[in-house]
């Protein structure tokens, strides 16, 4: 019984993490691309490095597709890698920069609110 409760709690925590990442990945992707163009795995690596291994990004296929449909990013160039594979680089658009600014504002507001309620009360 206790083990089942522990498993259920762990599932909830995992779900919380997954939902949090689902919400914040577009923000991170746009932030990285606002610095310079990157390919998908490069973004995953860079986020891992900057977060000291804390933020492990999932695959970016659907996020990049959605941002491309929204006009926030575009495929900027293709490059043949060492393994003879085609690497697709993405760049942010002007609409993407505007959206990034809005996202940053919203994230700052929401995270400050959560911090106030959870940690300072």
């Amino acid at each position: 019984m206790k083990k089942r409760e522990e498993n259920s709690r762990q599932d909830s925590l995992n779900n919380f993490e997954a939902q949090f990442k689902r919400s914040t990945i577009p923000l991170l992707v746009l932030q990285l691309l606002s610095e310079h163009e990157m390919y998908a795995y490069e973004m995953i690596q860079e986020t891992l490095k900057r977060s000291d291994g804390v933020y492990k990004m999932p695959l970016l296929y659907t996020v990049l597709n959605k941002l491309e449909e929204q006009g926030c990013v575009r495929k900027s160039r293709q490059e043949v890698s060492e393994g003879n594979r085609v690497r697709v680089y993405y760049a942010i658009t002007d609409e993407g920069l505007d959206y990034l600014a809005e996202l940053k504002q919203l994230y700052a507001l929401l995270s400050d609110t959560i911090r106030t309620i959870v940690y300072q009360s």
Partner: protein
Amino acid sequence: MKQSERINFYIDTYVEKVRRELYSLAPSEEFLKALRETLSDYADLNPDCTLEDLIEQFGPPEMVAKDFLGDTKELSPSKVAKRNRKRALIIGILVVLLAAVLFYCIALSQQTQSKGVLELNVQEGSDVIEETVE
């Protein structure tokens, strides 16, 4: 086994596991291609990686498949409802056609039976005539 062959084997295994977890519920060739490319990029920087390392880095295949299916438009409620309606319509048409064919076969069979009785009667009638003539 060479290192490159070993890594390709792990990548193929991982991609295949994800493919199976998709249950062909949505078009996914582009997604699996992108998955393979990302795994290969990871393997380029981690040439000693194992299948377990791939799972550790990118998550269990069933989770990867679940995330993709969760985000794909193909499984949006409106699309699923439309697909179900189309399927119901096709099944309805097939049932009607099957019923029509069945009734036609029954009618044909009954027609053949009654034609056979008529011929028998005619035959019996001509025997009677012949007997009378003789």
